[in-house]
């Protein structure tokens, strides 16, 4: 910067307001999580507790609002957002119905609740007002890219219509559902292939994905160190792709940092979530 000296620069250009909404016990680590993703320095941070309790203390620059009735969350957000910058809501829990009001006010909503299904069920009309995704989607970024890169190879792409079987091993059924939903929507299967989901023994949100046809086999598999992913593509007996890629850091901080970078509508997520809901029935 202008006549910069080592250490903190004289000023920071803020990039967004991030409002964490949820029960008080899920708001204690907001600043820490955002700092871990190297984001907090340029963010205006707000916590809104929706359970009547008080969140544990946080950094002094974090604005905390407690005792908000769930139906008035949007009202609280309206009071604290910065007018010239995007408002990003990090939804850590609360009444699903309150999401509608929040979505009309926020430029971006990142869902991060334990039970995602009732939230996803409310999302289709909200997609028109705000950019909305689930933190689980960020867990799948590198898995999706790894699979997409294998399909960059013409030999594998040529087999896309002939797949008959999809097996997923995952500890989080919603993550498995989202991945299967993404494939269903992308390939236009329309439910033709029903994923076989097995619980992951490692406890990893997703552990392996296998896509098979009589002539082609594509497999993604978490390596024992849980930080890398092996990808293999076989057409007939020939191995056409075989490599190990890094999964990056899969901490909440990193996943959230990725979500905060996304500001444009994520059609792939929207379709994947809808497919997952349809498959769940």
């Amino acid at each position, binding site marked *: 910067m202008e006549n910069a000296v080592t250490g903190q620069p004289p000023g920071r250009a803020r990039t967004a307001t991030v409002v964490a909404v949820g029960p008080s016990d899920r708001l204690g680590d907001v600043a820490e999580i955002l700092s871990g993703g190297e984001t907090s*320095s340029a963010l205006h941070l707000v916590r809104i507790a929706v359970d009547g309790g008080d969140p544990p203390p946080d950094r002094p620059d974090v604005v905390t609002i407690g005792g908000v009735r769930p139906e008035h969350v949007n009202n609280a957000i309206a009071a604290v957002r910065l007018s010239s910058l995007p408002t990003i809501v990090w939804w850590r829990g609360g009444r699903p119905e309150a999401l509608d009001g929040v979505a009309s006010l926020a430029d971006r909503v990142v869902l991060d609740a334990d039970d995602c299904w009732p939230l996803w069920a409310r999302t289709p009309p909200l997609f028109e007002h705000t950019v909305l995704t689930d933190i689980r989607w960020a867990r799948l970024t590198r898995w999706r890219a790894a699979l997409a890169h294998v399909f960059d190879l013409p030999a594998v792409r040529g087999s896309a219509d002939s797949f008959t079987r999809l097996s997923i091993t995952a500890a989080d059924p919603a993550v498995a559902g989202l991945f299967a939903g993404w494939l269903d929507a992308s390939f236009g299967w329309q439910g033709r292939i029903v994923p076989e989901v097995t619980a992951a023994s490692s406890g990893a949100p997703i552990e392996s994905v296998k896509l098979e046809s009589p002539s082609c086999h594509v497999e993604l598999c978490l390596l024992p160190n849980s930080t890398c992913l092996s990808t293999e593509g076989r057409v007939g007996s020939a191995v056409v792709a075989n490599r190990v890629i*890094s999964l990056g850091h899969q901490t909440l901080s990193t996943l959230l940092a990725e979500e905060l970078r996304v500001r444009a509508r994520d059609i792939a997520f929207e379709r994947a979530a809808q497919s997952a809901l349809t498959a769940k029935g």
Partner: protein
Amino acid sequence: MVPSENPLLDNLRIEPTPGATTLVIFGASGDLTRRKLLPALYSLSRGQRLPARFAVVGVARTATSDEQFRQQFHDSLQEFAKVDARSDEVVRSLQAQMYFVAGELDDPGLYARLAARLKEIGSEGVLYYLAIPPGVYGTVAEGLEKAGLAGTPEDGWRRLIVEKPFGTDLASAQSLNAQLHRHFTEDQIFRIDHYLGKETVQNLLVLRFANGMFEPIWNRRYIDHVQITAAETVGVERRASYYEGAGALRDMVQNHLMQLLSLVAMEPPTEFTASSVRDRKMDALLAVQPVVGGDEPPAVVRAQYREGWVAGAEVPAYRTEPGVAPDSKTETFVALRLKLDSWRWAGVPFYLRSGKRLPKRTTEIAIQFHRPPLQIFKRVSPTPLASDLLVINVQPDEGISLRFNAKIPGTRMQVAPVMMNFGYGTSFQGEVPEAYETLPLDAMLGDPTLFARHDFVEASWALITPINELWQKESGVPPTYQAGDWGPPEADALIAKDGRRWRTL
């Protein structure tokens, strides 16, 4: 029938990766490969930016086995990259796809062996990276063509990255272009200028053309002058043999500073495509008036550093550096004023300066605006008004600052300049990619936007060569400046003649 589109790429958050690619590095045992290219490959791999099928073939004179090359990759990462233990598997996976072909660059057998290896690997695309002296670019290009490795195959591509310096004057740049064009078409050739891979340089396009507020004032009506500075604290280091034949003018101004100037001065492109952006940059460069041969004496100053102090350490004079001739006339500092003959920039001087052993390492573009036409606070404010200033900091702290005047709180009307700062490091999360990551990836993807086109390189040499020729004719020694100063007094005089002064950075 293979679908032409990959449906899984829609809305993928990780940007596009090239199809199956093999990177062939000529000069694989060299410093650039060890320090920059191999670590960049690791970073790209960690960021999942490399294709599912990716291989590297190292080429050099020294007999090296595949295994030794893989070890070299590992050693290079240990020394120059931030490798964490979590990524060991990634490193091993990349190593498994690394090969080496040894031989003399003028030996047809080398290219035959390379062709056999490439056939074995079987990639759609091959990117040749010439990390070798420009003197052998032609030899390599010819060798590749004769082995059938230059032409674009029906189901793939062949591209060539060449490093700077691209020529030493206009004639040699033209000759180099001609040599390459005999074997590769222009759209296969990617001339790297690592300044163009810097985030702030790319952001200059966004600042100018994605905002409505800057473009209307980006002209002679509002801008007084532009200063472009590229300052280094280091001396000639281990590059004396190259630098003695180059100097600051050819090492920095001809390529990096001219690129920056063209990005500041260009007209808006009609779309963000390589040809549109590069056409407009070329127009800007063509508007620059020759420095030598006009009515006025050339507005250019050169100088060489004497011994002095930089960042608290005593440093030797240029002429006593290892590898430098004791009577060297090579300039380590250059300052010049350029005028652009265009509707937008008529009467707005562009001052460029670059040097070694200056007090601070920084590269910036400073756009200084005119003062207000009426000084209404002159009587009430004892403090003089500073001009508004927009500073685009290219390195090391990439960002943009805007200086304007504000009232100092209090009962008196006092005006003081304030700065608004935007820094990439603080405003956006994540690491800023290195130029050596961005640019080879762009070449693999076939996007030449951030590479120098042949006509730009030649036009730039056409401006610079006469200055150098003028200096060659001059007898006597160039002026000197003390290491740790901002150049010689002659540089101050150059700008002072116009009633302005250099920014103290």
